[in-house]
């Protein structure tokens, strides 16, 4: 079977309060679902790898093919856990290790 190529995104969350990992992931999935529908969102392979609560930086994984659509859905995200929020992509990499300076 062909290996699935993945990309890791370091994202900075700007919002009031600190959401839990679950709330953050729910917001990401909701944004992707609103834009691409349930089938489209399921193809992105979104997963939360890590979330640093102190500086609100998260590492999110997706498939290489869905990277542009995931970036768009992260930009389109406006609310997390009921609060107004913004997500800025800090870096994109093929390995988690390369993202460590941002994390």
């Amino acid at each position, binding site marked *: 079977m062909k290996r699935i190529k993945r990309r890791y995104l370091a994202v900075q969350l*700007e919002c009031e309060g600190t959401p839990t990992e679950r709330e953050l992931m729910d917001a990401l999935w909701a944004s992707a679902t*609103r*834009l691409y529908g349930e089938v489209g969102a399921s193809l992105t392979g979104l997963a939360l790898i890590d979330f640093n609560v102190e500086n609100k930086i998260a590492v999110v994984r997706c498939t290489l093919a869905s990277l*542009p*659509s995931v*970036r*768009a859905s*992260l*930009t*389109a995200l*406006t609310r997390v856990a009921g609060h*107004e*929020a*913004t*997500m*800025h*992509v800090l870096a994109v990499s093929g390995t988690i290790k390369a993202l460590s300076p941002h994390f």
Partner: protein
Amino acid sequence: MKRNFCYLHLRVTPSDAKVQRFIAKAAQLGYKKISTPFSTPPTQTELANIKKYAENSSLDFVTRADFKPRNQEDLMRFLRKYRRQFEVICILCDNKEVSRQAAKDHRVDILNFTSLDYKKRFFDRAEAQLACSTGVAVEIDLKPLLVLEGPPRTRLLSSLRRETAIATEFRVPIVLSSGIGEEVLMRKPRDFASLAYLFGLQESQALDAVSTNPTAIVSRNRQKLDPNFVAPGINVLKEGKLQ
């Protein structure tokens, strides 16, 4: 090559207290040029203040006028009066008469179709052909993509997809702007460019639309507004009496 990102459509009034915060935030997000649209020429104090804020944040402030003419005569009157007072002129096209006239006028820099109703978005092939011959750019505000949801956003994406395809075919420059007046909706330039994926713009085109295209408009107009400018490619280098 490092891109020089432009934020040409920050919707705050110059007298507003938020202006300073917005400008600082834009600089933090990685923009190099910033502009807030005026509908009438700002006072010297307003302009000096806003330029000072931009300078403090190492940003280049661009003066821009947005105007929504009722008809052709209104548009011509506006252009005659204000063209030499602003670096960028944007016409908000609300009817076909105005949008056609604006597209064929060299003095207009940007066309903006603000309406979400597809019947009131007049950027079709005829409009693109006119804009292509005069070098007028078409501006796409991304704010509605952030604030709308459901069917209105779907309809808007459909209109934008059609318009960008036409603009690409006729080589009409596209400018991606935010049209944002809330700090929470401000995004990094590359994040804004990524939204263009939703209406079929390629990554390089989208990045050009937030950097190269607006920068080209600003530098072209600054050159024209220079007192030594005579015609494209001709500048006064030295003045004196004939021997």
